[in-house]
């Protein structure tokens, strides 16, 4: 079932990338911190960078095999790529851009027109066929770039941060449109992103690339519930606090930079360094200091508010970051707080998950 297979060893200066994986049909999200190697991996797959050694194949067709001395140039790989800066040809109009790949492959003019018209219609871009690129909005340009990449029927689609250049509003529209349109193509698609909202929206398979290595892979839920690195936790929007466990007078306390958290004393943890995972939906927010137990309360400033469809995600900062997620209705009941305002956060210790860290 896995159509794209790769095993790549790449080095440039101090930077090293060693990645081996198999990607099935459909969308796979490639996440990781900036400088972690996402763009390098995409460029290596496309043939725009040369690895030290490795293999790449799509559906059994070898694109690269350094042992057998096979190395197809980018033009013979049949890979569609959506560049982060789109790389649309400024001297060609919309249909000229979309037709470029067909023309380069020697497709005759009438067939070319037919295919370009079909894909522009599918992308609801027909009325822009004769427009110059500079006249289009960023979102429209993105559609043209994607149409150009897909019209040649590639065997693999690479998307490099397709939502990064858009503003908040059009980002959601574009995600909805993209997930709908990509259903038509039964090919492996690898989308690099550093935007957590992308993973939350698409909820597809995820590949984490950090420090040039694949650190974790799996479904969105696997990553959400068992993050293996602080980056994944942060990315999935899970709170991942690092701190220390101590047990004064039969109590169990987790001390992090942001303050102390009292835990249920029966947790099976040793004293020493530990991490505490708190799901954002287990954090409740209040305008006024809540009555009752003063334990596990945190008074912090709102860093940002992200609206994820019918959910709202709020990040509070004190010394650590704490992410809370609530329904739109809950957000309205709070009076729609904005970044900069102060809120009280409360979470129950039994809804968190604590683990000792291996000796660091």
């Amino acid at each position, binding site marked *: 079932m896995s159509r794209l297979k790769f095993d790549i060893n790449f080095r440039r200066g101090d930077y090293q990338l060693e990645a081996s994986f198999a990607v099935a049909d459909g969308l796979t999200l490639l996440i990781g911190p900036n400088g972690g190697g996402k763009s390098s991996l995409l460029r290596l797959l496309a043939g725009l960078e040369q690895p030290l050694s490795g293999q790449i194949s799509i559906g059994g067709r070898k694109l690269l095999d350094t042992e057998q001395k096979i190395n197809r140039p980018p033009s013979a*790989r049949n890979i569609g790529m959506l560049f982060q800066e789109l*790389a649309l040809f400024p*001297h060609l109009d919309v249909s000229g851009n979309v037709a470029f790949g067909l023309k380069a492959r020697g497709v005759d003019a009438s067939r070319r027109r037919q295919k370009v018209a079909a894909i522009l219609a599918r992308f609801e871009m027909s009325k822009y066929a004769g427009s110059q690129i500079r006249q289009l909005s960023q979102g429209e340009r993105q559609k043209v770039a994607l149409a150009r990449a897909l019209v040649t029927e590639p065997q693999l689609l690479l998307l490099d941060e397709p939502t990064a250049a858009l503003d908040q509003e059009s980002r959601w529209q574009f995600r909805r449109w993209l997930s709908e349109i990509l259903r038509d193509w039964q090919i492996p698609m690898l989308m690099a992103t550093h935007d957590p909202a992308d993973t939350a929206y698409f909820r597809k398979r995820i590949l984490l690339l950090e420090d040039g290595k694949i650190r974790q892979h799996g479904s969105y839920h696997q990553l959400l519930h068992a993050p293996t690195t602080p980056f994944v936790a942060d990315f999935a929007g899970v709170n991942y606090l690092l701190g220390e466990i101590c047990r004064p007078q039969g109590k169990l306390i987790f001390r992090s930079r942001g303050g102390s958290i009292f835990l249920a004393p029966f947790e099976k943890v040793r004293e020493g360094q530990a991490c505490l995972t708190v799901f954002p939906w287990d954090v409740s927010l209040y305008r006024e200091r809540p009555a009752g137990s003063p334990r596990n309360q945190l008074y912090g400033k709102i860093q940002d508010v992200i609206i994820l469809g019918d959910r709202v995600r709020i990040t509070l900062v004190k010394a650590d970051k704490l992410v809370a997620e609530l329904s739109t209705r809950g957000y309205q009941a709070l009076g729609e707080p904005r970044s900069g305002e102060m809120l009280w956060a409360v979470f129950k210790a039994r809804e968190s998950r604590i683990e000792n860290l291996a000796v660091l």
Partner: protein
Amino acid sequence: MNNATTEKRFDTWLFTGFWVGSSLLLGGLLLLPILVLLLHPQPAELLSLLLSRQLLDALRVTLLTSTTSLLLIFLLGLPTAYAVSRFAGRYRFIIDFCLELPMAFPSLIAGIALLLAFGRRGLFGQLLLTWDIRIPFTPLAVILVHIFVLAPFFVRRAAVLFDQIDPQLEEAAQLLGASPFFTFCHVSLPLCHRALLAEAIMIFAQSIGMFGAVILFAGNLPGKTRTLTLAIYDAFESNPEQAFGLATLLLIGSSLLLLTGRLLLRSRRIVGNL
């Protein structure tokens, strides 16, 4: 306080006087001779000169040689410039130095070097003679001078244009299945076509003005190698009035060429990246 203000005002005046004075002096130095040259001949005289045999012959030689050399410079220079821009890497410094050399030395030296290479007793000249080919004192010699002096200049400038193309555009083209040659013809060239056209005009204008190397290597044969510039030189000795008229005509022609080039480059971006 008061003193400081006065001093500052004096400073400003001094500086204003400095740049106004310098630019007026330089401007006068440039414009005065041109104005005198433009106003000197009578329009009727110019018209009769325009239709004279000497001028038409020289014009024919000039247009023939300059157009041919322009075509050859483009044909050979464009791929070379592209190669310099893309593959020179750390040898770029040396290549740029070599390309600037012909601009730095007097064109007379170019003529001597060409004579030594292609002259009757020259290195290749002798070889060519065995096939009964003589280059010196033919229109081909004029063309060779143009190429020798102006092609490096063109390669240097065109390579800078190719440098400015966003490399992602070429990568995108290759991923879409385009061969490097298709990419060159359909992406790289169209992206700088305006700047290249302006470059062509400059080359053309400069080749018309070429003198020292031409007279040395190609001679001054009427109807064969006597270009407009050489015709002016020739007329200057026999009939100065005619030389002034010819110079005026050449000045007008060159100005028009330059103006066209300037207009082509008026859009702010030279290379058409988005």
